[in-house]
């Protein structure tokens, strides 16, 4: 799918299938790009560029099964471009999921904010690789990245690789990555208050992944909630 957002225009696109996206956002234009996956996704690439003072808000809610691979490369090509990225992914059973996301600041005064949240259950594997690259001469750019994964079961694994590449001095950059394992003490604590193991897990998964739901309409929100409950067997 090719998306062109013209000068001063605002577009909102919802993607629910396996299609790759190319976009360009013209001066002063803005694009809201939402992805929600309930069925398998194989290989998705997202490539796009932002012009002067263009805005991108990308939201990804991934509740797919099986193997999932997503590649996103977003170029902040002109002054004042501003992009946010929020992703939530739930990996269960033997899912293998990998998300590679990069933001490249080619000009100064550009801003990027990337947040990836994930939960890995059963024997699944979830990997977030994020790169924020500030090129030379992209002065006063501001780039942030955070990744949080919680791993439940001993056969499940999670990995977060947050990379900052900074080739200019006069910039602001931050990154944070946490991969936490749910331990027996957490579960015991929740169970000691009357929650079954499944209820306890669902509560934690919801805590991580539900915030993404508010970006979608009620129909999709309900589907997300239902999916969380199903995947935790409540």
């Amino acid at each position, binding site marked *: 799918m090719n998306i062109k957002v013209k000068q001063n225009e605002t577009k909102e696109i919802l993607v629910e299938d396996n299609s790759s996206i190319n976009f360009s956002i013209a001066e002063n234009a803005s694009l809201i790009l939402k992805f929600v996956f309930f069925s398998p996704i194989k290989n998705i690439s997202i490539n796009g560029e932002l012009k002067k003072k263009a805005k991108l808000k990308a939201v990804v809610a991934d509740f797919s099964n099986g193997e999932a691979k997503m590649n996103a490369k977003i170029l902040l090509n002109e002054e004042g471009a501003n992009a946010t990225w929020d992703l939530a992914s739930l990996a269960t059973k033997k899912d293998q999921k990998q998300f590679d996301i990069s933001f490249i600041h080619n000009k100064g005064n550009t801003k990027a904010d990337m947040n990836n949240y994930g939960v890995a259950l059963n024997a699944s594997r979830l990997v977030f690789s994020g790169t924020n690259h500030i090129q030379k001469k992209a002065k006063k750019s501001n780039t942030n990245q955070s990744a949080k994964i919680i791993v439940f079961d001993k056969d499940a694994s999670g990995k977060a690789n947050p990379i900052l590449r900074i080739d200019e001095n006069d910039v602001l950059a931050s990154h944070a990555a946490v991969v936490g394992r749910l331990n027996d003490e957490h579960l015991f604590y929740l169970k000691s208050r*009357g929650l079954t193991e499944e209820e306890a897990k669902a509560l934690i998964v919801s805590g991580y992944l539900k915030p993404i739901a508010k970006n979608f309409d009620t129909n999709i929100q309900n589907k997300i909630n239902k999916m969380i409950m199903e995947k935790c067997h409540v």
Partner: protein
Amino acid sequence: MKSLVIKNLHVTVDGKKILNGVTLAINEGDNIALLGPNGHGKSTLFMSIMGHPKYHITQGSITFNNKDIKKLSVDERSKLGIFLGLQNPSEVPGVNNSDFLKNIMNVRRDKPMSLFTFYKELEKAYQEMEMPFEFANRNLNEGFSGGEKKRNEILQMLLLNPKLAMLDEIDSGLDVDGINQVAKMINKKHKEGTSLLVISHYARLFNLIKPNRAVVMVNGKIVLDGKPDLIKRIDKEGYEWIKNELKIEINKKQVHSIGTCATKVALKK
């Protein structure tokens, strides 16, 4: 009426024996001080009653209101009305405090509460605990100070209305105002019918909640079960006199430092 009855309970943690035949009967309405040197099995007893998977019962029985609870899951024990206020409550990542409280209240109701009823009850409990209501929107115990965690334990006790509350060093980490506040709420629940089994190393808390019984645990056994004046004596004299009067050796090998419980020692090996 008997509430909790423990007979000849033997418990191991990672193969190490910690309880060596605990026998204790709690009557409804009891308010019991559980005393004993560090590392002699007090917390282990609580964990075993609650059903923590690391604590293996090798012998003996636990009944609650005449029901054998040894084979029940942790959540089933909780739903029967047993509450454990932990010494070190876990910080649970990602879980919103008020979501958590709503869930634990709803699982013991036939029908979920309306949001309005829930917020009313929650607001009342926060007021009673003199905690700012903003705590409801933070993550469960995440970034809470020691004292805030303990208040959050008592808040849960208020909302869950247990038949038996076991409180493990609920006063540690609390400042003086905090101890007074927590004691006030413990007394309130006791008046409403909650039986109490309370571990503390300090007479201050017991002066405020006035137990009717004091029980002393040494070497993984109950060695004394008597009047509350035991608390004063132990506060003044420590545990040495027990050794002489009862002619028992107090096993010091288990004690590494203040605040080290027997289980931690076992797990380190």
